């Protein structure tokens, strides 16, 4: 910003050379209150926090939510000659889910620091940076890794078999087939077609777009009847690109978040929001004015108690493609 000379408003007298009382104000210096930060992180998995499941189930304590379900037996052959023994043929079950992710953050701010930094170090600015650069990506890291951890130990509710992720190395040639296969698994699991979301790292999103482009151009050359069904399937989902560091299977949450040494890379995360629950039990945030206890400083403190779970009976509404942690499956087109 260029220097701007403005009239002084402090009532000072004229300068020694007899000119009017004018003080040079460098607006770049004086009014640089907006922060020059890196681009902010956003909540990439925000749609999963808006799942209707969050208001559907009952809390049994401040940290436990119970998921009810009923199972019944199937039909058998009727017999006209006898009366069968009557018995209960349904089972009611409550699955408790206990929240464990309790996180906090706090800071002190000295009032003089606020003045001396020309209002840059205000609580508003500090918490904004904390949210955008630490809290949001940490919540995303927790969400994706917890869903993967829950899913990898869950069983297919229809077959009882352990769920395993697709591990195909993705290329422009096969990415639509892999995606189609994940969609097929959902179809067989009777997952609603509407509302499915495909989260992919930006690297995979690029491959996906290239494959889509190739397929669509082939459609034109092959004639109007040769529409690639797999491209149509891609149109049925909402594709959301996510930074690849926020699509890992394991994180170190000692302070903030960090990708763990042995984390795997998630290349595709196809999910229907009805398959997850993201309860928040408790949130607290408060700013205390300077006091004797705080030795004259503002004290900001926030804490939240939340977690992310998958609903075991809807585990088929979640599908993954993963590769080892060395990087994403970014094999590019050879054509």
């Amino acid at each position, binding site marked *: 910003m260029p220097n701007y000379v403005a009239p002084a408003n402090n009532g000072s007298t004229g300068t020694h050379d007899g000119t009017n009382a004018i003080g040079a104000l460098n607006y770049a210096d004086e009014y640089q209150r907006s922060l020059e930060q890196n681009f902010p992180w956003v909540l990439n998995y925000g749609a999963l926090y808006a799942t209707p499941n969050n208001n559907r189930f009952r809390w049994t304590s401040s940290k436990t939510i119970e998921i009810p379900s009923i199972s019944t037996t199937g039909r058998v052959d009727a017999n006209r000659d006898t009366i069968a023994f009557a018995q209960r043929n349904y089972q009611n079950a409550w699955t408790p889910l206990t929240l464990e992710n309790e996180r906090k953050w706090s800071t002190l701010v000295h009032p003089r620091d606020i003045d001396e930094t020309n209002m840059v170090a205000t609580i508003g600015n500090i918490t904004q940076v904390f949210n955008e650069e630490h809290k949001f990506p940490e919540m995303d890291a927790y969400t994706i890794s917890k869903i993967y951890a829950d899913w990898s130990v869950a069983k297919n509710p229809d077959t009882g078999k352990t769920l395993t992720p697709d591990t195909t190395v993705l290329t422009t040639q096969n990415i639509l087939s892999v995606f189609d296969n994940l969609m097929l698994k959902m179809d067989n699991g009777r997952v609603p077609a509407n509302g499915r979301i495909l989260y992919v790292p930006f690297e995979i999103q690029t491959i996906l777009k290239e494959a889509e482009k190739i397929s669509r151009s082939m459609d034109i050359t092959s004639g109007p009847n040769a529409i690639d069904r797999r491209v149509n399937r891609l149109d049925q989902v909402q594709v959301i690109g996510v930074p690849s560091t926020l699509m890992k299977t394991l*994180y*170190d949450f000692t302070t903030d978040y960090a990708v763990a*040494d*042995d984390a795997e890379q998630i290349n595709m995360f196809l999910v229907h929001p009805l398959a997850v629950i993201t309860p928040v039990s408790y949130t607290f945030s408060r700013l205390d004015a300077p006091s004797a206890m705080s030795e004259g400083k503002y004290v900001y403190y926030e804490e939240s108690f939340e977690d992310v779970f998958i609903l075991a009976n809807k585990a088929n509404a979640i599908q993954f493609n993963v590769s080892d942690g060395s990087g994403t499956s970014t094999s590019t087109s050879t054509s």
Partner: protein
Amino acid sequence: MSEIKLRKANRIVRVTENELDKYLSVGYVVVPDKKVQPTSTKVEEPVKVEKPVVESQKVDAEPKSEVFSQSKKPRKRRN
């Protein structure tokens, strides 16, 4: 104080011995630590700067090696 690496599901945490029991009681298990030292503490090796060869040295060195190599050449036998 050394830290102990623990894991439960998707979470890895590093705790001190004082906090260990608290985490073990809620299902965390100790995992071997393969943590690499942070790069910031890594001592970088000094960059070797080769001294420029002075022209006079270069001139001196070359004939010597040539003379040496020529003197060591086996003579051809005359038939």
